[in-house]
Structure formats: structure tokens, C-alpha cells
């Protein structure tokens, strides 16, 4: 099982839930907008109960279109979508009761209070959680009687997630839940997602933050130009890059050596140069670094910079597309 590979320490799916029970399944999903813009070009996804599934990709990759089709807000051009074993066409009312949605950038009514907003959304469900309970869970109790317009960005986002949680959802859909938030607010959102998951919920989220996907998601599909270009658990994806480590250095020499020159060092899988900085993808830094230092010494050069880091999903994306995730 894929899940077994995951970092221990976080409360994951309770064991009584069957891990192989698919709650979201879509096959060959396509969406063509008027004017022949192909936003989604054949995406397959299977999300299992209790999983936190991430769609990672740059802006415009088709993440929002995909998640909105799964939420039943857009119609697919072709392909099949099944949520909890049902389809949007046949059981829309029932499905609406079982999912919670937070759209990318919903601006809730500014002149209602936080509690009023939550009670309004709760009122749409046959069974709703008491507003105070949700407010306490999302650390919004102090702001319960404040107008929504007066909230900070992080508080607004937590309220948006609260409106998704108020109806006891089995699946939570979050479209870019932390975009534009400060680091502390992002961590609060992550805690909310983990808690929901620890209580047995399933999460599908989209993000263009690789660190978010890496820390939060059990399984990731990397989406680019409307297709999934790679999928797997974060460790699987990262080990697919080749080396697990990166050694980056700069020399104070006028004439840098060509990339091929560094290739001869032991354990180097790839070499990239970016201005003055040379980046080596390596399997075992403890073998490569002493050899690198010796080579520099031999040639009478001096290092002006030397850092090492582990491979990240960013490297996976760069490796697959030649672009950075957040290229403007």
C-alpha cells in the first residue's frame, strides 16, 4: 500500500476505513470551453476514502476546471465522474449533502457576521453542525459577531472552509485554500485539513505551492496543460527525479567550467548551471562533496557559496517540464 510509505507522526486514516474504497473516480475527463480552449485534456483520478489528494500545478494548468467538474459545478465535455459511487446527473441533491466545497476566492457577504454566515450555510443542509462548534474548531470564536468584511485574509479563508465543514461533509474540496495567505494562516489551514482527515474525511485540494502538497497530501497528481504529467506519493515522485539531493555552489573564478566537467564527479546524476551557480543532482552527498572540494583545490579556485538541499516536488516539476512551478 502506497500509504505505508508516508511519514509517521501525523494522524492518518482510522484503520476501520477501507483504504481501497474509492470515493472519487474520474476517467478520461475532458473540458473544452467555447472558443475551443481545451482546459482539461483527459485526466484520470482515483481518490480513496481518508486520503488527502493534491492536484499540484501552475496557474492555468486546469486544476480549477477539474475540481469544479468533480464538485458538480461545471459539466464535463466528455469522460465519467463518480462521487461516492454516484453521478451528478442522477443524484445531485444527495451528493450536495455529502460534500463540502471551498471555491477559489469566494467573497462572502460582507455585512453578515461570521456566525450568521455559518448559520446561513448550515441552514441549507438537512443536518448541520452547531455554528459555535465549527467556530471553535476553526479558531473563529472571538470573531463570531464581527462582520465578514472586517476579517483578515486568513480569517476569511478559515470561514470559507468553515462553511464547507458545517454540513458534515464526507469529502472536502478545497481550491487553492492557502493562496495569498501569510505563513501562519497557511499552517492553520493545514491543521484544519489534517484534523478533518484524522476524523475520517477525504480531501481533494489544488495548490501551486509544492511545500503544501508535499507536507499535506498523501497522493499527488502533477497537472500541466490539462493533463496529469506525474502521479504518486510525494516520496515516490521525488525519488523519480533521480538523485535525492542537490549540491549548489558558486566559484569566484572568471571562467566557470562547462557542465560536463562536473559530470565526472562521483555520484552526479545531472548538472544544471544558472548564472554563476552550478547545481548538481546527486545520490550521495557524502561522496560527492569531498570530491568536489578536492577538484576545486586542485585547480586553485575558491568557493564563494556551497549549499545542499533535499529534492522537492519543485525539482520534479522542473525535471518534467523544464519550467518552474511559479514562473510568472
Amino acid at each position, binding site marked *: 500500500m502506497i500509504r505505508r510509505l508516508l511519514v509517521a507522526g501525523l494522524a492518518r486514516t482510522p484503520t476501520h476505513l477501507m483504504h481501497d474504497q474509492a470515493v472519487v473516480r474520474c476517467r478520461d475527463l475532458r473540458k473544452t470551453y467555447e472558443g475551443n480552449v481545451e482546459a482539461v485534456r483527459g485526466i484520470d483520478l482515483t481518490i480513496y476514502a481518508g486520503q488527502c489528494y493534491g492536484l499540484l500545478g501552475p496557474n492555468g494548468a486546469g486544476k480549477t476546471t477539474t475540481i469544479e467538474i468533480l464538485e458538480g459545478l461545471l459539466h464535463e465535455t466528455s469522460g465519467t465522474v463518480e462521487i461516492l459511487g454516484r453521478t451528478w446527473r442522477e443524484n445531485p441533491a444527495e451528493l450536495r449533502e455529502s460534500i463540502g466545497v471551498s*471555491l477559489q476566492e469566494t467573497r462572502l457577504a460582507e455585512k453578515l457576521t461570521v456566525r450568521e454566515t455559518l*448559520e446561513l450555510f448550515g441552514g441549507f443542509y438537512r443536518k448541520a453542525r452547531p455554528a459555535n462548534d465549527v467556530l471553535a474548531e476553526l479558531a473563529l470564536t472571538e470573531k463570531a459577531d464581527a462582520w465578514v468584511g472586517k476579517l483578515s485574509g486568513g480569517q476569511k479563508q478559515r470561514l470559507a472552509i468553515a462553511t464547507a465543514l458545517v454540513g458534515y461533509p464526507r469529502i472536502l474540496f478545497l481550491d487553492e485554500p492557502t493562496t495569498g495567505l501569510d505563513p501562519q494562516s497557511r499552517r492553520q489551514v493545514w491543521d484544519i485539513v489534517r*484534523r478533518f482527515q484524522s476524523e475520517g474525511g477525504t480531501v481533494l485540494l489544488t495548490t501551486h505551492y509544492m511545500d503544501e502538497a508535499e507536507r499535506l497530501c498523501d497522493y499527488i497528481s502533477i497537472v500541466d496543460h490539462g493533463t496529469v504529467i506525474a502521479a504518486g506519493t510525494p516520496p515516490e515522485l521525488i525519488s523519480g527525479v533521480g538523485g535525492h539531493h542537490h549540491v549548489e555552489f558558486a566559484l569566484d573564478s572568471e571562467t566557470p567550467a562547462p557542465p560536463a566537467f562536473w559530470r565526472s564527479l562521483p555520484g552526479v546524476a545531472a548538472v544544471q548551471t544558472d548564472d554563476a551557480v552550478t547545481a548538481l543532482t546527486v545520490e550521495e552527498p557524502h561522496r560527492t562533496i569531498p570530491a568536489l572540494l578536492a577538484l576545486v583545490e586542485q585547480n586553485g579556485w575558491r568557493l564563494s557559496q556551497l549549499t545542499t538541499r533535499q529534492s522537492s516536488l519543485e525539482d520534479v516539476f522542473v525535471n518534467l517540464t523544464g519550467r518552474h512551478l511559479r514562473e510568472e
Partner: protein
Amino acid sequence: MIDSTSDRQTQLAPAAIVHGRWTGYRMLLVARLKELFREPEVIFWIFMFPILLALGLGIAFRNKPPDAVRVVIAAQPGSQRVADLLRRAPEAQSLKVAVQPPAQAALNFRLGKFDVELLPQPAAVVEFVYDPARPESVLARSLADHALQAAAGTTPEVPTLSRVNSEPGSRYIDFLIPGLLGMNLMGSGMWGIGFALVEMRQRKLLKRYVATPMRRTDFLLALATSRLILMMTEIVLMLGFGVVAFHMRVVGSWMAIVLVCGLGALCFAALGLLTASRAQKIETASGIMNVVMMPMWIFSGIFFSYERFPAAVLPLIRLLPLTALNDVLRAIILEGSSLSSQAAPLAVLCAWGAVSFFFAVRFFRWT
């Protein structure tokens, strides 16, 4: 903080709230009303503006004592006799007579300081100089003529009597208030519904709502109900203001007025729904709404009777929903007509509402 609450949660696990069929509708209605009353601009445009307008126009067109007619006599032989005659005439209190040198008298008449100029001629003839394009000049000529004849002792061939009547019901303000009520119902229906919807669409709030189990009919029903509730306050304010400030008399039944206003409010709410059914931006929607409302502001007889327009276009004007609403309101409020006697304009109103609603629901875009 988050940790402590999660402890509490596992200990207490609060019970779920089970909602009935109409909870969503009730919540939407309450939220809508709260939002409206927390928006100071809304309160101003819906409630204060029409009253200020009625007050301003009511004062401008209030029934004043009739203006005295201003007569100038050119100072030449015979002018003293003419002045004496006018002073002795029964209409003397309606005449303001001045005697000025001929050149100055001519100039002042031309400048509009006097309504008519009298030139005494030889053989006791009085020549009137007046401008037929100025209604007050025509009136002044005829009044001065009559005054001279009466003062000279001429007996009229047909004896006549006159009586003053400026009772409430026939004044401009009586005509105006039902028109303003109609205009208000149109404005707040179109803006109140259309604006709110486009704003919610722009904020992606409509999309967020349809991502929940909310019934779409409940949403529209709540909007319509909020309109009817506001409408009641509009009626009470406008007519109450007319009654209190201008001693207006409401002749017809209040029940009929409320029914007609309700119909009007719903008709314009449907029209607002239609104009806002697809627009993504407030700017687009307000452009469309102005285009829709402009002809009715001009043609539907809010401030003056639409009968002044050429007879050929009157049937078209009567087909406008605001014309129909204003006609029915005036008939009931000023003449005490029954609802059944107003079948034709009521049918026009219903048709507009039904057709607008049909197409609005058909074209409506939630996302």
C-alpha cells in the same frame, strides 16, 4: 487554541442540528433583510430619496395664491384715466399697475417685467401690446380688458359666476405621489434584485450557494419575499408622507393598494431578475437596467400625464409596465376605482412579470 478545542470536541461531540424543509428559505430571507438594513445607501435610495423628491416637488408646485397680473401703462395723454379705471375694477386686487414713460414701459414689457403693456390712444381707445407666446401675457391682456370694461360699467351679455376649488385630489402633489410610488416600486425592484444578484455573481457567492444543497427556488422565493416586505414599508412611507405632509386623500381601499403594489413589486423584481440573469459585472448590469428604465421614467407619467405625448404613441406607452402600474395606482388612490375596473392595465403588469420571470429563469447563470 486549536488543540484545546479538539479536546473539548471529543469530550462533548455536540449534537447535529436537524433542519426542516424551509430552514434554508428562512435563513436566506433573514440574511437578505439584515444585509439590506445594514447598507446605509440602500436605506437612502429606497426610503429617503423618494420622500425628499416628493417634498421638493410638492413645495415647488404648491398651491400659491394666484399671481397678480403685472400691467404697465405708457405715460402719455389718457394714461391717468386708464390707471383710475383699473384701480376701480372688481379685479383690482389681481392687477399690479404701473405707469412708466413709453420707452421704459416698452423695454420692461420686452424684458418680461410686465405681462402686458397698455398704450392709451386718442378718442379713449386703449391699445394692448401682448405676446401670444407667453400664456401669462394672454391672460393679462384678457383680464385687463375685462377689468376696464367692468370698471366703465359695461354690462356683460352673459352673466357668469365663479367659485374657487383647490381641494385635495386635484392638485399636482396628488397626481405626483402615486407616480413616485410607482417609480419607487420600479427602482427598488430592479436595483434591489438585479444589483444584489450581479454582486453575488461577481463575488462567486451564487456559485458557492449552488455548491450546497440549497434549493434554487428557495433562493428566488427569499428574494421575492424580501421585496414584498420592503414594498410594504415603501407604501406606508410614501402614502403616509402624502397624507401627513400634503393632506392627500386616499380614496380607494388600502387592501387594493397593497395588492397592486405587491403585483408591481413582483413584476419589477422579475424584470430585475431578467436584466441580471447573465451579467457578470455590476457596470454591465447597471447599464442594462438604465436602458430598461429610461423609457419608463420619461413616458410612464411619473411627473406629468403621458397624455401629452402624441396620440399615435399612447397605445405603446400604455403597454409599459410602469404606465400600467401608475394608472392603476392613480385610479385607486385618487378616484377609488375597483380592481375589476382596472383589468387591462393589471393584465399588462401580470404579463410583463410572467414573461420576464419565464425568460429570467431560463437564462439565469449561477456561476
